[in-house]
């Protein structure tokens, strides 16, 4: 098979799966929908592996041209896929992790009545995500961008009978739309100045542009990335998005969709390299988000909410890496994060499954004996995210920290602090869930093999994922960085000037502190038998954090209330005083006129004849004298 057909089949199979499952959703019984969906994604993964093995990074990107999509005047947008190191990395993550999550979902969604719809949507999401990462131009990427937003909305609101879930879905959609608007404006501007949306052409042409134009474009693209990747100020939708089924949280809101913003910036690294101001904005946005989200995570009591804030925080780290120009470190963290965060979410799902739907960690505890596989894998995931060597999170986080230290020690200190908070709340979660005495009332039971096997696979990946980009000090030679360097020009420009001894020292410091924090968390939470109070009963500072820095309330005051007031005013003034009288007036006028005019319809033929003659005479006179 040639590469073009392979590349077309990778997103094609999930689309086919979505269509087939959606069409047959009433006749598919039991696990057949799940098996079909998993098969589609699994085949796409196999094809991605084939593409990966057949790809020669040194030969540059391969463009799979399918057909001309838009061809109007000076606008030529082909429907084409670009196969290069970056898109291959993302494809492998999306399809690989996606396959495991599909498999897991067979067990998790077993009892749901709309399981076929669920798998159709999940396949559709995978299709859109592949479109996003494989598109050879911004337009295709944008289709995927919108597609994942739509699927995210549909899957968050999957249990649509609950109004709160619907509200969460709507919130996610609206916040994504705000970002999408920035993205679209950026694309329009980009097309205006370069005359093309194809990546290779755009990157060839941007060099001559002024710094102001580039700063504007990259800022707009970054707004799009903020919306999709849940950064300040648009991150509040992601924790609410936990309303969706847990596999959805794992796939969309941890492993793949939320990294679309990272992908976009890495893909556009040429542009961002030319706009230093935007890079700083990216850096500080990521930094503030990482810290704010981490502090909020400490006081959450919902197992999925903790993971959600952790996701936001980790995404912040990735943006910090991008802002520092360390694109390979960002992509490395995307990859390892996809492994361990998917693992943690699926583990959380397994816990929830084991307790029959319980999500509050205050009613868990002591589960490590009851659900052994879940406990083991969850522990591995927690160690990975905390950054204990030699787990994958250690290497990827360390790469970011090292780059930060290279820029400034203050930045390093802040990021390290964030990492320690991460360790603290993750181990709080772990200890409260699995240690101590059981505080709930349901009988826990281990999940079936179809759910635990993906957990084990992801656990292995979380442990060894660091080998993908083993740094020099450990005897590796950063294979992922060199692989990606062929795809994104920005990576080639990365420079890290650190002595090996400095690196050893930094690693030692962070590891020691992390272990210390784990011990602290163990002391506070491992033997906990009492329940934490509700958020309202906490003292001021913890209450501030538990209430998410009152960000939701702030947005409500700042945007929702004025907007609602404006809408009410428009309704009262515009609708009540102008439009309604106008409309009703037009209607009444027509009625009155009709009542008068119907008198003319006498039904008398002779009268009609007279009227007709009179009309003809009038017309003749008009043509005669009317000129």
């Amino acid at each position: 098979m040639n590469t073009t057909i392979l590349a077309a089949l990778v997103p094609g199979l999930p689309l086919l799966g979505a269509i087939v499952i959606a069409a047959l959703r009433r006749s598919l019984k039991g696990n057949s929908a799940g098996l079909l969906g998993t098969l589609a994604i699994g085949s796409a993964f196999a094809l991605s592996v084939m593409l990966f093995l057949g790809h020669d990074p040194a030969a540059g990107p391969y463009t799979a041209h399918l057909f001309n999509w838009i061809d109007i005047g000076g606008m030529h947008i082909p429907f084409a896929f670009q196969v290069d190191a970056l898109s291959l990395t993302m494809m492998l993550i999306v399809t690989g992790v996606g396959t495991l999550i599909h498999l897991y979902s067979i067990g998790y969604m077993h009892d749901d009545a709309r399981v076929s719809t669920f798998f159709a949507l999940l396949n559709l999401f995978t299709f859109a995500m592949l479109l996003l990462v494989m598109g050879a131009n911004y337009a295709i990427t944008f289709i995927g961008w919108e597609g994942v937003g739509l699927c995210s909305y549909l899957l968050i609101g999957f249990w649509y009978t609950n109004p709160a879930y619907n509200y969460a879905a709507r919130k996610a959609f609206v916040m994504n739309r705000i970002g999408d608007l920035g993205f679209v404006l950026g694309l329009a501007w980009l097309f205006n100045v370069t005359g093309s949306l194809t990546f290779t052409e755009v990157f060839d042409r941007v060099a001559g542009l002024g710094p102001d134009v580039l700063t504007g474009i990259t800022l707009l693209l970054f707004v799009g990335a903020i919306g999709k990747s849940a950064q300040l100020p648009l991150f509040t939708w992601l924790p609410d998005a936990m309303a969706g089924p847990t596999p959805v949280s794992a796939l969309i809101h941890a492993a793949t969709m939320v990294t679309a913003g990272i992908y976009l910036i890495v893909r556009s690294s040429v542009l961002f390299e030319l706009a230093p101001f935007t890079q700083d904005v990216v850096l500080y946005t990521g930094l503030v988000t990482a810290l704010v989200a981490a502090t909020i995570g400490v006081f959450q009591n919902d197992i999925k909410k903790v993971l959600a804030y952790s996701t936001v925080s980790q995404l912040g780290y990735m943006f910090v890496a991008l802002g520092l120009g360390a694109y390979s470190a960002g992509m490395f963290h995307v990859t390892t994060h996809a492994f361990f965060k998917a693992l943690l979410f699926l583990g959380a799902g397994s816990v929830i499954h084991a307790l029959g739907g319980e999500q509050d960690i205050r009613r868990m505890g002591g589960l490590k004996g009851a659900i052994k596989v879940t406990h083991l894998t969850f522990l591995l995931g927690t160690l990975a995210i905390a950054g204990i060597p030699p787990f994958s999170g250690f290497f990827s986080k360390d790469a970011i920290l090292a780059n930060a230290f290279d820029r400034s020690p203050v930045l390093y200190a802040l990021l390290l602090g964030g990492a320690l908070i991460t360790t603290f709340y993750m181990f709080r979660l772990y200890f409260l869930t699995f240690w101590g005495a059981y505080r709930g009332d349901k009988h826990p039971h281990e999940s079936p093999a179809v759910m635990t096997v993906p957990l084990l696979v992801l656990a292995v990946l979380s442990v060894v994922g660091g080998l993908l980009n083993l740094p020099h000090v450990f005897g590796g030679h950063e294979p992922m960085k060199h692989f990606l360097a062929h795809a994104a020009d920005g990576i080639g420009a990365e420079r890290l000037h650190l002595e090996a001894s400095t690196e050893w020292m930094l690693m030692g410091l962070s590891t020691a502190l992390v272990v210390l924090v784990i011990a602290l968390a163990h002391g506070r939470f491992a033997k906990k038998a009492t329940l934490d109070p509700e958020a309202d009963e906490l003292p001021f500072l913890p209450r501030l954090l538990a209430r998410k820095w009152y960000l939701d309330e702030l947005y409500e005051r700042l945007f929702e209330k004025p907007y609602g007031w404006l809408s009410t005013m428009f309704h009262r003034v515009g609708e009540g005083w102008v439009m309604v009288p106008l409309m009703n007036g037009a209607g009444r006028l027509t009625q009155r006129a009709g009542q008068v005019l119907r008198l003319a319809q006498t039904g008398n033929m002779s009268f009609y004849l007279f009227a007709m003659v009179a009309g003809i005479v009038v017309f003749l006179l008009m043509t005669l004298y009317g000129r």
Partner: protein
Amino acid sequence: MQYLFYLFAAISVLSGLFVVTARNPVNSVIALIVCFLSIAGHYILLNAQFLAMVQVIVYTGAIMVLFLFVIMLLNLNNSTEPQKTLLTRIAAVVAGGVFLLTLLAATRQGVEIAAANPADASVGLVSHVGMALFKDFLLPFEVSSVLFLSAMVGALMLGKKEKVAA
């Protein structure tokens, strides 16, 4: 030649007036036949021989006979003749007069025939009209057969006795 025109003109106007004023519908039909024959005479004066024949055969021969036939069928005569009030009649005459005046006023500056084709005496002959009909106007001619078919079907539908509670 001109005298023949004025003769025929007088006949058509007088018979036309009689059509309107006659109390008995049969008399009206007879007067209309006379009027149409005089118009056929006008056609001959204009060298429109084909039209003159068609006028005699189709109008006086077929259509007016159809009128007569319907009058017989419905048994119309003086006694069944509805009458309008005097006021309506005066109004009708005034309206017709105003209409005529308006038309005449519209053409009071004369009629323009500047763009006339070169004189051709064979214009009204059957062969000439036939050539025009079957070459330049073939499609309308053929389409008119559809018109006739629909008229026929319509007449049949209307003439059929309605079934009770169909």
